[in-house]
């Protein structure tokens, strides 16, 4: 198994106290698996993605372990973590449009980065050019500055650059959010292709857009307020979700064939709880139609059928 996350807790330090953005999550990602993470903003999905590669200065690793290919990642130790970055864990950031130094030619920047990892640029160059062609870019982009490329082109360069050393795990944070639908499709397809070619062993794709996950992901993990709600194969999440939050989330998506002049598209009433002092028990309780007394106790994230985990007392 590529990645095993066990009871991971990452909190944000603030002046008013700790924000428990990621409060004990446990899951696994298999070799070759593309796992999507979905959830509304503030659910902890970006925090999870960041925690796996680089904590920012406000984030604090409170507990839990992350094991990648039998190696425990030293999340809290920035210097020790540096050896794992890029070679083992890599990232496609939310901000691919501005991810590259505007005053360096792209090839030059890649050369600088590779030499920092003791990799010779000239040795990797043929593979780099091959992959650029694979995503439909000319090799002369290496001689250009980032501003000379369109948004979609930059996104693809970042994709190639991030996966150049064949990392075990690639984290894609809102990879497609800033793109138009046709570029979205191209990038989604490239992600799957890169996995199929073995450039990346497994992937975590974070997005608020479940329809993108349906195209890309093998499994989907739904998060709510710093906890896991449900994890299942993508098809199951869409067609037969079990957790009431997942059901409502899927129900909030428009469906082809439905006529919305006649019926209202349903949203989910209420807001997620504050993560500064989150309530005990199931965090979805206040918005849940199925809530009952038992929900004051936190439900375990358990496997209800093969590869289908749910954290809900109402699901047996």
């Amino acid at each position, binding site marked *: 198994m590529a990645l095993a996350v066990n009871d991971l807790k990452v909190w944000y330090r603030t002046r008013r106290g700790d924000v428990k953005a990621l409060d004990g999550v446990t899951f696994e990602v298999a070799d070759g698996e593309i796992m999507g993470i979905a959830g509304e903003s503030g659910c902890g999905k970006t925090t999870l993605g960041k925690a796996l590669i680089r904590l920012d200065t406000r984030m604090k690793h409170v507990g839990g372990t992350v094991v990648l290919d039998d190696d425990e990642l030293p999340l809290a130790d920035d210097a020790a973590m540096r050896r794992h970055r890029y070679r083992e864990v890599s990232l496609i950031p939310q901000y691919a449009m501005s991810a590259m*130094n505007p*005053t360096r030619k792209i090839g030059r920047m890649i050369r600088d*980065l590779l030499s920092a990892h003791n990799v010779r640029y000239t040795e990797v160059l043929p593979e780099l050019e091959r992959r650029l062609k694979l995503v439909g870019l000319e090799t002369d982009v290496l001689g250009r500055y980032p501003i000379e490329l369109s948004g979609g082109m930059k996104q693809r360069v970042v994709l190639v650059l991030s996966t150049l050393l064949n990392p075990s795990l690639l984290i894609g944070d809102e990879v497609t959010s800033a793109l138009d639908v046709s570029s979205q499709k191209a990038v989604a397809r490239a992600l799957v292709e890169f996995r199929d070619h073995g450039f990346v062993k497994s992937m975590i794709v974070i997005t608020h857009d479940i329809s993108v996950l349906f195209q890309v992901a093998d499994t989907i993990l739904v998060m709510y307020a710093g906890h896991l709600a449900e994890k299942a194969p993508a098809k199951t999440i869409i067609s037969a979700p079990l957790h009431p939050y997942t059901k409502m989330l899927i129900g909030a998506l428009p469906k082809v064939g439905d006529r919305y002049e006649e019926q209202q598209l349903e949203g989910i009433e209420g807001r997620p709880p504050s993560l500064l002092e989150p309530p005990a028990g199931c965090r979805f309780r206040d918005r849940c139609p199925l809530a009952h007394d038992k929900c004051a106790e936190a439900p375990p994230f358990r496997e209800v059928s093969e590869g289908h985990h749910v954290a809900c007392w109402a699901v047996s």
Partner: protein
Amino acid sequence: MRGYLARKTLVYGLTFVVAVTLNWLIPRLMPGDPVQRMVARAAVQHPETIASMTDYYERTFGLDLPVWQQYLNYWAALFRGDLGTSVWLFPAPVSQVVLDAVPYTLGIMIPAILLSWVVGNSVGAMAARSRWLDNVALPIGYLITAMPYMWLAILLAWGFGVALGWFPVAGGYDFGLVPQWSWSFALDLLQHWVLPFLSLFLVALGGWAIGMRNLIIYELESDYSNYLAALGAPKRLIRKYAFRNAMLPQITGLALQLGTILGGALVTEIVFAYPGLGRLVLSAIQNQDFFLLQGTLLFVVIGVLLANFVIDIVYVLVDPRTRTGLTGATA
């Protein structure tokens, strides 16, 4: 690039013409008549003598001609390198007087501007990465950059000149020496140079350091820095990129500074009685010496324009974004 150069040359050419015109015009709008002043200096009483002297001076300075012709003559003489004759130091030619003063001003300004820029940027970049240095350097930087040039100059002159007696407080060289190529004269020049240099250097230093610190911190927070860090790039590489990008606004700042520091140099030269262009401007104004004032300001204008032109070109070479911005994107 060629189109850009042509356009820049045109803009700078136009600026030059306007500057020279203003330069010619402004002394003529000043109250007072320099010829009357010269005649008065001769202290003659006889009206006929006065009339013929006035006539002679007016012809010598070309003031008897219509204004438009004076203007054209001014341009024609300019291209021959003739800036006229000084009224104050009559009959010394203005070009000679100015050229004598230029090395003193450049000798102070160029090291002060460039060294303060280099040192300030280095200190600022270091402060951005060390909390301890930041806490020390930042308040000092704010303090010295807020000081007026002349006030700092007076403090230095009093402290190091009068109180400690380490450096002389006035002049470009000792009044007892004759300018010559010798070690003792060079050493004397250097001693007189230290305090005026220091006053300009220190004031500019603080501003550069503060600016650089803020710019670097901004760059280190930027997306490309975060991405590099996520890909395991060492701090050294990230800082190198941040420094390089933070330098760009500082280069523009340098160009702007070149224009404004002249005001500082002027006051500094007066405080230290330093024989540069600044003191020449003051003497020219006090003596209503049109030609000297014009000539001095002309050198200043040419200096500032040249410096800005060079910086414009350097900027295009170091920042690819300005290049595409000016020629249209190629992609």
